[in-house]
């Protein structure tokens, strides 16, 4: 029925300065609300992106390149001595993964790994007077189907058509639109090696990733080898894992074994993950700044209240209230503003998210990913983190002036009041 004395004093003081209290609470609420909404938005986007990557892109790729230049044989013979070579010319090797088909077969033996050997290369697609440069992937349809989500991404035609029509080609939806080509259209495919083939559109895919939908096509591996004039060669091995978290470990194991550069999906996308990290840092800085501003507001209101209530402090101390009681009166005000601000901020954050989700955003065309509405990552963590942060910031902001109030000597105040 009766509150502890410091608490009822704290409440009385806050109620006595209603306008300032409301402004302080609003400041905290703003910080908390934006923290929640922006975190959900950012993490939602990151999660969506990762899901998309895991869905669309191979989990591990082996490429026809080496991470470091090959060591000269003479250096290998004299490992601990200085070797000077002059007139070294890089060998004009035939590009591609040597023994790629065999390597692909070996990898396919590993449990939970599906493998698709590929020869990829640039070609021009020509249709109705339009010329578009694309990356043509020469695939084995059955293996590619197992090692990717191409089946689910087909929005027209069928992947299996490549088996019945060996001059079939599958193109991205954006590419189809750019060319004005539909299923059954006959495209002229020209390679930099000067080979020309007429190929019929047997399928259209749509991944949602602009780069792929506008710049990628599939054909049989043999056709790609003919176009690139690289018989029996492959230059890319795509792998799909049952457990995506094994990607990095598997990649380094394969690279150690075969020597060819092999990347897990995290490494392939490390630029973007770096960007994500940067975004997170920027957001944390902004939220930190908002909380600091809110903290200053609280510091300010508590300092003002203390100045105004010096006489109360003096009489309360002369009555017998301890330093800690006095401290508690003002810290509790900060805590209450923090809690009220956090609760209001939770509501604000939730409301902002509802609002964001209800707005359709159309980023289907030129951006690097198809997004139709805001993807929000909702988690209690954002609420807990922001709440704890707000109450902590508010308490510290109140504690600093409260400590000074507790040290005031009643005699000094009483003397100046008389």
């Amino acid at each position: 029925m009766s509150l502890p004395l410091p608490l009822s004093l704290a409440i009385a003081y806050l109620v006595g300065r209603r306008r300032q209290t409301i402004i302080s609470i609003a400041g905290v609420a703003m910080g908390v609300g934006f923290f929640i909404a922006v975190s959900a938005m950012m993490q939602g986007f990151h999660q969506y992106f990762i899901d998309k990557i895991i869905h669309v892109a191979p989990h591990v790729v082996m490429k026809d390149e080496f991470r470091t230049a090959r060591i000269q044989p003479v250096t290998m013979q004299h490992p601990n001595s200085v070797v000077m070579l002059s007139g070294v010319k890089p060998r004009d090797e035939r590009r591609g993964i040597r023994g790629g088909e065999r390597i692909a077969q070996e990898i396919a033996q590993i449990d939970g790994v599906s493998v698709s050997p590929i020869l990829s290369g640039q070609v021009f697609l020509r249709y109705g007077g339009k010329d578009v440069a694309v990356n043509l992937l020469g695939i084995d349809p059955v293996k590619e189907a197992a090692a990717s989500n191409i089946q689910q991404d087909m929005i027209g035609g069928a992947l299996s058509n490549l088996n019945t029509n060996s001059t079939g080609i599958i193109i991205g939806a954006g590419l189809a639109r750019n060319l004005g080509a539909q299923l059954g259209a006959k495209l002229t495919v020209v390679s930099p090696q000067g080979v020309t083939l007429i190929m019929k559109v047997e399928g259209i895919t749509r991944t949602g990733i602009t780069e792929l939908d506008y710049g990628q096509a599939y054909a049989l591996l043999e056709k790609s080898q003919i176009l690139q004039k690289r018989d029996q060669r492959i230059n890319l091995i795509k792998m799909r894992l049952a457990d995506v978290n094994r990607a990095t470990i598997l990649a380094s194991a394969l690279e150690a074994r075969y020597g060819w550069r092999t990347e897990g999906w995290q490494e392939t996308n490390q630029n973007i993950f770096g960007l994500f990290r940067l975004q997170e840092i920027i957001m944390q800085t902004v939220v930190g700044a908002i909380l600091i501003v809110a903290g200053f507001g609280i510091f300010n209101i508590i300092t003002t209240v203390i100045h105004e209530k010096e006489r109360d402090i003096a009489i309360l101390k002369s009555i017998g209230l301890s330093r800690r009681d006095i401290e508690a009166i003002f810290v509790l005000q900060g805590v209450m503003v923090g809690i009220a601000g956090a609760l209001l901020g939770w509501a604000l954050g939730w409301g902002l998210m509802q609002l964001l989700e209800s707005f359709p955003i159309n980023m289907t065309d030129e951006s690097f990913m198809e997004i139709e509405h805001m993807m929000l990552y909702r988690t209690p963590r954002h609420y807990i983190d922001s709440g704890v942060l707000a109450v902590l910031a508010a308490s510290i902001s109140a504690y600093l002036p409260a400590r000074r109030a507790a040290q005031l000597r009643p005699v000094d105040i009483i003397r100046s009041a008389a």
Partner: protein
Amino acid sequence: MTTVLDLKHVSRVLTNEAVPVTLLHDINLTIDHGEFVAIVGPSGSGKSSLMYLLGLLDQPSAGDIILHGVNTTNAPESVLERLRLEKIGFVFQYHFLLPEFSALDNIMLPMRKLRALSHSQMRQRAEELLCYFGLKKAGHRLPGQLSGGERQRVAIARAMANDPLFLMADEPSGNLDTKNADLVFSLFERLAKEQNKTVITITHDPALAARAHRQINLVDGQLVTA
């Protein structure tokens, strides 16, 4: 008669000034239980300084203050807080009522800190005190809605809330008209007589001082025997 307050060679010197300022010099004084004492003296003679020492709001530079058998000099802050809470009630020239709290709530403040009574008992005691001080209808009013005399009586009621041994008042009638000043001193007389309180008050009004059992005269920080 039992001695409830005993000062031995008490002095108070301000040392944090450029030149040390002696506020009080070698004060020896005993006050008995139930005594009504008036401290008189010219302005600036150190009356308030002495009262702050008696009320444990300040510490002497030398000497001992024994309050109800406890030597308070250099006692820990927690002991002083406890003595102030239980044994001493203060009244100043300014009422120092908390403006957000009703008269009743102001009177309950010391009881709520002491926590010796239940909430309803605190309330009942506060109402009784209001009655005793002739403020029966003022309980729910805020200090701003009371007259100067009423405010000072609420302040006295608050000082008596925990039924202390001492009532210490520093020029309690300084801001009051003659009628109200008279009323305050009548209350002091009653408290000493009816409730056996030890009342120590500062005043510069000789007529009021004359109503006390004893006058203590202070000049330039030293006691002067009348």
